[in-house]
């Protein structure tokens, strides 16, 4: 897959949809193209967060450790971004991400990612929107869970 195809993929990621293509190309160029075989770990829960990943092809499972072993909490489809929370909060990874099938991804390093956010307010706003959206969902889930008790 070439740079220009990657730009096409990135444009489909909601987070980057507001950014002009030349900047996306720069982002793609400065990111590492990484490939994983099925079962390989992108990162583990508890690791230091040093990069975010945009899935280009293939799918990955998000696993959270529990007393009864890892539980799959979600699945990542192509064009989704993962691992950005640990970068933003300077925290460790909150979950493990494992390739479910052969997977291609763009690995965006932490300092590059933060620099992008500084330089492209559109992206930051989009980021906030996505996070707020997630929070909404989480709150709704929480209310459901509480009322179900």
């Amino acid at each position, binding site marked *: *897959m*070439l*740079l*220009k195809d*990657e730009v096409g993929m990135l444009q489909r990621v909601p987070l980057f949809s507001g950014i002009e293509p*030349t900047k996306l*190309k*720069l982002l*793609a*160029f*400065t990111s*590492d*193209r*990484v*490939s994983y075989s099925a079962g390989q770990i992108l990162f583990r829960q508890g690791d230091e967060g040093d990069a975010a990943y945009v899935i280009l092809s293939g799918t990955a499972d998000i696993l959270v450790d529990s007393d009864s072993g890892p539980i799959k909490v979600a699945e990542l489809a192509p064009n989704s971004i993962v691992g950005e929370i640990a970068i933003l909060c300077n925290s460790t990874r909150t979950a493990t991400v494992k390739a479910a099938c052969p997977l291609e991804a763009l*690995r965006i390093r932490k*300092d*590059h990612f933060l*620099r992008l956010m500084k330089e492209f307010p559109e992206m930051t706003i989009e980021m906030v929107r996505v996070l707020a959206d997630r929070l909404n969902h989480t709150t709704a889930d929480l209310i459901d869970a509480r009322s179900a008790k």
Partner: protein
Amino acid sequence: MEPSLARYIWTHTKRQQVWILLIVVLSMIPYFLSFDLPKLIVNGPIQGRGFEQPGATRPFMKLHYDLPFIGEVQFFSGFQLDRTATLFALSVVFLLLVIINGLFKLYINTYKGRLGERMLRRIRFDLVDRVLRFPPVYFKRVKSAEVATMVKDEVEPLGGFIGDAFVQPVLLGGQALTAMLFIMVQNLWLGMIAVVIVVIQIVLIPRMRRRLIVLGRERQLTARALSGRVGEIVDGIGAVHVHDTSNYERADIAARLGHIFKIRFDLYQWKFMVKFLNNILAQLTPFLFYMIGGYLVIQGRLDVGQLVAVISAYKDLPGPMKELIDWDQARQDVQVKYQQVVEQFTVVDLIAPRIGALTIDDPDPMTNPLSAISLSIADDGGAMLLDRISFQVKPGETVALVSTATGGAEALAEAFARLNWPHSGRVASGADDLLELPEAVTGRRISYASSDVFLFQASLRDNLLYGLKHAPLTSVPYDGAAADQHRWNIHEARRSGNPDLDIHSDWISYASAGATGPHDLFEAVRRVLDAVVLSRDILDLGLRSSADLTRHTELARRIVELRAALRTRLEHEGLSGLVVPFEPGAYNKEATIGQNLLFGAAAGPELADRALAANPYFASVLRQDGLDRTLYEMGMEIARQAIELFADLPPDHQFFQQLAFMSAEEIPAYETLLQRLKNRPYEAVSENDRAMIVTLSFAYIEPRHRFGLLSDELMSKIVAARNRFYENLPPELQNAVERYDPAKYIAAATVMDNVLFGRVGNNHPDAPDRIRSIVYDILDELGLYAEVLDVGLDFNVGSGGRRLTGGQRQKLDVARALLKRPDFLILNRPLSALDQRMQDKVLRNVLEEARRDGHSQAIVWVVTNPAMAMMFDRVIVFDSGQLVEDGTHETLLAGNGIFKELVS
């Protein structure tokens, strides 16, 4: 040291000084003879005196003089020669005398020069010898750069002076006296004039020069302080940057330089003033000669020949006079310098020479306990670190010293290592005071390592083995020119009072390390490196460096086997994709285009990096297939894309790290280049511009940069060009490149690159780590682990060991102490830079290593964490300079003392 320079010189060189004096006196004879000749030539054959009758002859070489008080002296009655023959004969004699005088001068100067150099060597050695014998406390107060500048620069002028110390005044004084005497003989009154002026010079000039000496001393002290400060800035550069004090340092240096400038300028002003006066005085004499002498000639009371002889003799007077006065100044100057240096090197409590005397045979083991007897140690300010401590460490015992912050255990460890001398009381081995034992005993039977590590700028191996180099153990056979050189070295060393120990001898005491020779020393080294958990780090260093193939032949011999083992292993684990191997007939997608073209490691500058695109032969190879044009167009495309991507970014942007083929500074240059070349046909582009553009293509890796520029056709063309390149490689490039050959070791590449013999895939983020651990395994399986570890031991640790981390330095220091297998191992918070887990691990290993082969070393370990004390036979607790508890770990824990408090 001898405080008077003159006496120092006389003591060491009296025989040579007397000899050279004799030669100088001897040289006076032809010198004196040469004065008389001009007069003889002018008055005799030229003016014709004594040849009034045609065919008249005069005696030649009849030497007789009217000397005052002695009367007429005749040396030789002479041959009879006519006027012309006399002229030629006298002229030839003149020429001969010139040559003889010249030869004398040559011999004297050479002899003096050698004498001076020998003495300089002696002084410098004496000074360094004293540094080696200074008591430890001295080094707390002195800056190393100042000591270095004293040894190197400040005594330098002494060398030039020493040859002249006695010879110069005699020679010049003799010359001046001769000239003076000659003038007197010719005419008493003219002589008296010269004498008066000379006396004025001798009295006045040295008086004026006194100030010069004062200034000279100041210049020396300020210059020394400057080099001390510069040394401090270099050593403390971290502190300077951390605190933003670089401008404070600039101000300090500028102020010092200003002060030095002022002193030096004052010096110059005075110097030239004195010179001016001296010259005026010297010129006054001929003025008087011309006036008074000329008057006397006109009056007929003096003949012209006499006046000419006086004036020509006088020409020889100011020279020696001036030099004599200069000599006197140099004498005072170097005397001051010498005194300044000697003062600095005169220290009380100098370690006696017998303590550090060379001892070839290893001393007997120390079987007596090491004891502190009523030992007190004070710090520099006089505060007591230890107050009347008494206790004993028995041979074979392991003791943990646990200390509160003011406990003083560290001072005790230093006292055991002789690094801190008692204020009162003593440290003893049996009945002997430790300070009275030769270092040959303490330095071989006691080991010491602390958190404050010093490493020399040498290889890891040299640093590790440093603790074994006590004495030259082998005599090196020399033959031919080397033998002559060696004999000369020894002769000269003795002449200068230097020791003639051979630095090329094998100094390593293998027996100390439990080895029998160089072949099995490595086993011992590896054991101690394993014990301090440093082997892995050194192995990594080995993998990252290029091996010296004269030493590591095994590696080169088995490289094919190694490469095959790696391939098999990768395949076996399903990881073949991680490394794309170099294959002579195939394009390697994970390598750059340049690497694919060259397909070898550049061993010289001709084909390295950017020079490759500009190399004419390489360019000609590319041209054959039109590849040059393809790569040019490709380079243009890369430049376009890169500029499009990066042009608006500020130069310090992190993204530039990712742009391998262009630096941020080069972007504007490529931007203008691109503008300029945009519509120009390829043929019209200059060689330089082409190289600039093609260089970009050379750095291109498709899977990494992903511009989509590499086609199958291009790849096969590149492989073809690679083969063409090697087919006709011109002889001057034969040594500039080592072709990748699956069956050969590449000397110019690192060990890791040699094992991989390929490129690690760009899109496997954890590939380097996985491959490294596989390589470790394979090295172990094939028995090449030790070989690569040995390559790592060649690593140069840098100034003060700064190329290693703090933890690595401390581990190396402990390894060095262990390697010696001492009777007493003193470890003073040795691993403070490591985390507790690692400290515990090393502690366990060291205790085990100390007990290996039935050895029983005593270990005294000042622990950083009281919990570590658990592993020792005995625990001693210090608080406020007092020994407060002493017992086994269990008894102390059972008690209710400080130790229990410290542990909890």
